[in-house]
């Protein structure tokens, strides 16, 4: 990538028409022209992905030394592992990671189970109004996550939220944003927003299941349930894996929903999720520590994604 950048290529205007008869040319020519195609992306990628992470790693290796009297003046002292060691002992940070892990372990299977179920139902021969159901579950995807969180915060509202009213008719009283339920209130907002997206991916894969296979199953006397479970689900496994990976990644970056719901409840604190915790360090003007937290999270998510990827691809081969 870097080597191709240094080779000075001519601009992609029309050049040397006469040479076009040589059949060998395209290979060598395309390698020179590729620079013009991938160049802008590579430059921006380095600037917006590689450079910030490199800068964050650099920044994270300093320790903030506050003035003994606490009057202004702070100093940054080079102490490469200080912030990382501090993070591992930081109870609020560790708690936020544990909370998000719990969230992911519960929310991802529930959401994907729902997505798979809806996709199988819409794909089944008994379904009617398929496009209506497909669109209705996908509609929340078009709603910005902060808007859906705002909307649900009104719906959850204990004083004048419609959910409370509806449940009140049945004599049920639930405080959705209480200490016990807040995490699941967040999970519901995420599930509401992303089930349809995952459903569409799985449904698209279901459409690729050959009709012959399904007919053969039917002729062998397989019930629709059995066909769905033993034939369709194994055949769309790659799509289910893809949505699982995306959902794990999604859980790791949980921020918008709890941030907005925090405005409506005291049950969600400023360090509720790891990203919120890093933001809190930023608010406290401890940039090196915020940088260290970000680096830890990026590495953690990368390791998790790769591990999951390896694990599942080995099992399938």
């Amino acid at each position, binding site marked *: 990538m870097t*080597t191709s950048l240094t080779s000075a290529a001519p601009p992609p*205007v029309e050049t040397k028409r006469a040479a*076009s008869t040589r059949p060998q040319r395209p290979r060598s*020519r*395309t*390698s020179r*022209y*590729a*620079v*013009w*195609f991938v160049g*802008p*992306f590579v430059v*921006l990628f380095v600037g*917006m*992905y590689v450079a*910030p992470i490199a*800068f*964050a790693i650099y920044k994270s290796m300093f320790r903030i030394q506050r003035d003994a009297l606490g009057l202004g003046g702070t100093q940054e002292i080079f102490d490469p592992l200080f912030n990382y060691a501090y993070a591992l002992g930081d109870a609020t940070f560790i708690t936020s990671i544990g909370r998000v892990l719990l969230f992911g372990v519960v929310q991802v299977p529930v959401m994907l189970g729902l997505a798979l179920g809806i996709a199988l*139902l819409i794909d089944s021969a*008994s*379904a*009617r*109004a398929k*496009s209506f*159901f497909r*669109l*209705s579950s996908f*509609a929340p995807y*078009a709603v*910005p996550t902060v*808007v859906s969180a705002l*909307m649900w915060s*009104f719906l959850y509202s204990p004083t004048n939220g*419609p959910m409370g*009213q509806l449940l009140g008719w049945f004599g049920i009283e639930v405080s959705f944003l209480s200490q016990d339920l807040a995490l699941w209130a967040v999970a519901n907002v995420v599930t*509401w927003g992303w089930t349809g997206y995952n459903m569409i991916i799985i449904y*698209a*894969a279901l*459409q690729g299941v050959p009709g*012959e296979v399904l*007919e053969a199953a039917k*002729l062998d*006397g397989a019930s*629709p349930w059995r066909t769905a479970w033993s034939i369709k689900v194994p055949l769309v496994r790659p799509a289910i894996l*893809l949505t699982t*990976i995306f959902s794990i*990644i999604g859980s*790791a*970056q949980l*921020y*918008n929903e709890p*941030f*907005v719901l925090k*405005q409506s409840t005291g049950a969600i604190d400023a360090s509720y999720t790891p*990203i919120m915790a890093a933001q809190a360090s930023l608010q406290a003007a401890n940039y090196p520590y*915020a*940088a260290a937290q*970000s680096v830890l999270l990026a590495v953690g*998510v990368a390791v998790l994604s790769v591990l999951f990827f390896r694990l599942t691809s080995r099992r399938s081969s």
Partner: protein
Amino acid sequence: MTTSSAPAPAEKTAGDRPRRKRSAPQGTTSKGSRGGLRGDSIETTATSRIAVTAVLALTALYFLFPLWWLFVAATKDAGYTFAGSPLWFSNFDLFGNIVDLFAYKDGIFAVWMANSALYSIVGAGLGTLIAVATGYALAKYEFRGKGVLFGVVLGAVLIPKVLFTLPLFLMFSATGIVNTYLAVLLPSIVSPFGVYLGRVFAASSVPDEVIEAARLDGASEGRIFFGVSLKMMAPALVTIFLFQFVEIWNNFLLPSQVLISENLRPVTVGLVSWNALVQAGQIERHMVIIGAFVAVVPLVVAFLSLQRFWRSGLAAGALK
């Protein structure tokens, strides 16, 4: 649940059809939306149809009722937002509300909507072009570092952008582009997933023969890309653009972090700042609800009108 009990399949094969098909004696429903290959020979019973539809209707209720509530609440006159039934109209004043919304504080909401549109259209437009060019090169060209580049792109798809926001902020504050349009635009343009989709689409929709033929006609690589290949990849362009558009429109953490001025905010950041003021009693909740409703409309319209593009795009992303 159906009538398939006879294990002898071949006896009634319809002559000219290559695949096996039972001629169904009764109740054949052949309304499968994909027609042809699947669905037309699968019988269903009324019970299963009702059961499936009932379950699907329940899920649709879950997905649609919050949106319906938002719409109904946005139509209620100021002061009556929580009056009457939460799920039915009363004191209808949708248009008055919209006028109020856009008049508030010299039309700051319109500025936010315009900013969102600017970030999304420019960011997704440039981003799509850059991503497709890269994906096209990955699919059609041989060059050094190709494998490495593709590996890096895939790796970047697996690490969420949100994790880069704080490092970006640190870098931007050190370089002084915090609180400018560029601070939001530059990171938004880069889309590894777009590159990935671009590669998938280029490989599947631009035949090598077409490129070779254009080369023999003496067209330059640039001409081939802009004049021939891009046209063949038009559906892909729409898909990548739409998904990047939505991603940028919905982005919250990046703009809330790198922007300070109220006038540069996109609508997501603006609405959340209003919501914070609601708790402090400085603005009516009513305004947040109407604003939320208006902010959602452009995306719903875009998705509904461009349905056939994004569905094929998601399918391609899932299958490869």
